[in-house]
């Protein structure tokens, strides 16, 4: 498992890269390994408004479907439509495979974690 230092992390297992008011969102390495083989990613529409913490899509593996939650609020500027044909890219490279890009309206809430905090959070979760 690897968690880049440049990303912020949500407890719902999404990563966030903030560059000015542009945000990029994907799911973490831990999330992909827990889900198993990913077969489908349900994407939002470009232009859709999303509130911080709200569902913006879902990711389906052979054993479950999980909702995707946006760590920040904003407007969807881009969706990774390559995932329609190759959703398994998330399994092979979770950190490099983004799902949506947003123009941020609500700044990242304070509850987002750093890479080391997230690693500790995952360790606690799996420890139970």
């Amino acid at each position, binding site marked *: 498992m690897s968690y880049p230092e440049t990303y912020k992390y949500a407890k719902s297992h999404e990563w966030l890269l903030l560059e000015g008011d542009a945000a990029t969102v994907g799911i973490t390495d831990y999330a992909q390994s827990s889900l198993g083989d990913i077969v489908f990613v*349900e994407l939002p*529409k470009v232009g859709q408004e999303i509130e911080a913490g709200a569902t913006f899509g879902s990711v*389906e*593996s*052979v*054993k*479950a479907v999980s*909702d995707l939650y946006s760590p920040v609020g904003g407007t969807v500027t881009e969706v990774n439509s390559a995932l329609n044909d190759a959703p398994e890219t998330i399994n092979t490279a979770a950190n490099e495979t983004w799902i949506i890009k947003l123009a941020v309206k609500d700044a990242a809430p304070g509850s987002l974690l750093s890479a080391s905090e997230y690693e500790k959070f995952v360790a606690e979760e799996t420890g139970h």
Partner: protein
Amino acid sequence: MRYLPKSPADREAMLAEIGVASIESLFETIPAEYRLTHDLEIPRQHSESEILERFRAFGSNVASGDALELAAQPASKLFASFLGAGAYRHYRPVIIDSLVQRGEFLTSYTPYQPEISQGTLQAMFEFQTMICELTGMEIANASMYDGSTGAAESVLMACRVTGRQGAVVARTVHPEYREVLATVTKHQEIPITEVGYVAPDAGNQSGRVDLAALDAAITDETACVLIQSPNFFGTIEDVAAIAEIAHAKGALLIVSIAEAVSLGVIKAPVEADIVSLEAQSFGVAVGFGGPYCGVIACKEKFLRQMPGRLVGETKDTNGKRGWVLTLSTREQHIRREKATSNICTNQALVAMMVTIFLTVYGKQGLRELAEQNLAKAAYLRKTLLDAGAKTKFDGTPRFHEFVLTTKESAAAVNAKLLEKQIVGGLALAKWYPELGESATLWCATELTTKAQMDAAAAVLAGVREQELVGVK
């Protein structure tokens, strides 16, 4: 349907195998004078329905149980029925019940993945395939409860697909389907707007969805348009024109079909995005409200929003063809409250009846069946018109149902018919008061006999004569 043990080709092959030229030469060791040279003088073969009819007739002459009670009954307790309106009387080949009552199917009627057999899965897969071929859609689920819940689930599905909340529904959709839809959508904040139909005397569009009103009713928040074809009045809708109007505004088109036999002659609603079919007509007896067999078919791109169970074809670890329940992640037992539907069982056994029915009839048989229904309805309509009744929505194409009006009220006419052991048309004033107190919906199927139709017409003509006497 005939079950002959040997075809002429089989005989040829058997003769060739033993090196004999013909049946005659096979028996030539028997002196010619002792050989039969003409057909046996026995009756020719009968069809399955003729044989059943014959044994029923025998049965009616045999006292079983309390002989006195039986003797007190009228000679025939069988009623002729002209009711349709979503529950259709069609012939059920006897093979349906003899197969579905096998323990392998009957006792495991709604199995889950771990215990489901390949035989059951294959039958469900074939059901889905047949439904796709009939409806012109790309995928179909393994059944819904019935046509009404299927239509309601289709509306919910359209909301998920489009991200919009709202449906425009034709008033020509079965009134009870619309009631179920109202119940299902009430607490999901999905507003329903109803659109009327073209007036009875408005020529070649009468009884169809009012296209101008439909166009005006669709907004940016309309997820779908729901129509029925043939509609509740038996009129065939202009599906292509309605699809164009819906699609121009980004709404999906759902076509509900209550009479599946109509697909034998009517073009499949290929312009639709979702088809909700009630398959009761395909081998399911008309009972006290059920069981029925709904099914949803749609375009493949909506696969993940489709409710219900789905069987897929796959390969096992040895590379052999097999079947599985697939895409279960949409379903309640995996996805809990976020599932596409709370449907947790399906009508697998009833769907099996449908599959057997369609296998027995085949493509050509279904067409002939539908044509017989058309012909019977055309005769019924003509003979009731000759008896002095009037029809509404003339000039639009229809299947086997039509709206009739009489001088007396529906209740009065039906009471007179009932005296003659005839169940007349369904009174429509309850749902369509604008059609008047005498409007009734009549249906004829392949089981409706000429004698029954003539008897009903005679009662209607009698009603008219009495009126004339009164006028004088």
